[in-house]
């Protein structure tokens, strides 16, 4: 199960006595089990902050976040996270990166390595199990990061612009791979992105956010049938609508 509930969450970053940023202003939302939700919004609207609060790395000043009815207080293996920056441990080989989570839960190295093969196969990097991160391309690094997050069998996968640093071609391939993984593993995915294209291709539900203070502006259900066509007329209409709405937000 992976049902996320965000209730009246506010988060203010205080720099000194007079200056502070209200990054999230009274946000409430719900994500259903096995749903794929994309967060889109102008830069600095608090997308990363919200994701970090759900992961437990940050805590809200007001409000609560629940996973399957249990309040989230700290990071836990039930929520995997893929960061925007490359976050693989450079001192560990690909396979050792993937088994990091299972090892922390006390699983024997041999069993964990056997299990890791499954996830490496899922992201198509079995031949690279002994490579170190410096030997991988950007896209391969993010694939390993996804495999590493999945190895903990999380019910929710949090992804903060995971493909932001990749070229368009690699991005498209990884989006497709992610959808395949999502279908196979039956998990909930919360996915932050700058790209409306990406959101329209991936999401069941798109959460549009507005900047300073960060609020939810609109939640759009994407009813396009899967597998999706990137350039179908319906997708174009939807993309157009979201872009206009975002433009208004940025001009404010």
């Amino acid at each position, binding site marked *: 199960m992976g049902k996320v509930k965000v209730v009246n969450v506010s988060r203010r970053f205080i720099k000194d006595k007079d200056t502070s940023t209200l990054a999230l202003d009274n946000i409430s939302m719900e994500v259903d089990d096995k749903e794929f939700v994309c967060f889109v919004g102008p830069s600095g609207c608090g997308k990363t902050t919200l994701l970090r609060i759900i*992961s*437990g*790395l940050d805590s809200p000043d007001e409000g609560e976040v629940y996973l399957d009815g249990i309040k989230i207080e*700290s*990071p*836990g*293996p039930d*929520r*995997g*996270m893929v*960061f925007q*920056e490359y*976050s*693989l*441990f*450079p*001192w*560990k*080989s690909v396979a050792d990166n993937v088994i*990091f*989570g299972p090892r*922390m*839960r006390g699983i024997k190295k041999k069993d964990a390595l056997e299990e890791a093969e499954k996830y490496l196969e899922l992201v198509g990097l079995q031949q690279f199990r002994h490579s*170190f*991160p*410096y*030997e991988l391309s950007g896209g391969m690094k993010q694939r390993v990061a996804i495999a*590493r*997050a999945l190895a*903990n069998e999380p019910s929710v996968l949090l992804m903060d612009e995971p493909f932001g640093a990749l070229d368009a071609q690699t991005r498209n391939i990884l989006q497709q791979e992610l959808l395949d993984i999502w279908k196979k593993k039956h998990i909930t995915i919360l996915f932050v992105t700058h790209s409306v294209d990406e959101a329209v291709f991936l999401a069941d539900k798109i959460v549009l956010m507005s900047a300073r203070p960060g609020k939810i502006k609109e939640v759009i259900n994407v009813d396009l049938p899967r597998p999706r066509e990137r350039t179908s007329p319906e997708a174009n209409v939807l993309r157009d609508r979201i872009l206009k709405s975002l433009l208004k937000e940025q001009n404010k």
Partner: protein
Amino acid sequence: MIKKLFQNLSSKSVEIISICSAIILWQLIAVYIVKNQFYLPSFTDVTLAFVELWSKDAKLGLMDLDYQLPVLLVDLIYSLLHFWIGLLSALAIGIPVGMIMGWFRTIDRVVDPLIEIVRPIPPLAWIPFAIIWIGLNPLAAGFLIFIGAVFPIIINTFTGFKSVSRVYVEAAKVLGCNTDRELIRYVALPSALPSIAAGIRIAMGVGWMCLVAAEMFGVSRNGLGYKIWHHYYLHNMDLVLVYMLILGFLGLFIDRVLRYYIDGKLLKWRKGVVI
């Protein structure tokens, strides 16, 4: 086999020519320009002195051991003993202290001022206290090397821990690595290892210098450094040079072994990094 050796040699030909020319130059200057064995012993003088020294025996009297060994070997054993006592204790204390200071902000604030006051005192200034506290034995020389080596190790470990990238710590937390102990063991320590290794190399250099000085100043009655002073009194300048060269080669050798081990084994994940 011989062919391979030859290939190896020819690939290093520039280096070999460089060393050979330096030796020839030294020999020519010593024999034809300086013409005084006391001011500058020639290469052949030094080689002969070395050969002669090798045939002399001395007694190694460590604890209950009592062996008859070449005098050079005895000096070497004493010096390495001093060195390793100092360096190992500096590692045993410096790395944990640096780790704790780097990880816990409050402990850093408590310890840092003390370290900043003690650190600028040159290690050799501790010689009188080393002798009074510990006496004239290998531990006193080891103590001085410890003083010289411990600060570079603390500071580099500290810096390494301070510059652990936040994203690695957060990635580890999300993967279920939550206690300070686990985070230090599995994230901060490996991430800081390059910096710690650099600190150890600096510490070995400083320790090596302290070793010679400590032995010269009479903290020990044995060792390579002590023998330099001893032969200077006896005006055996060729032997002084023999001991100097041995110190140089030994320092080089230890550094190489360490670098081979650390770069080749511990830090092979850093091959992509340019330094």
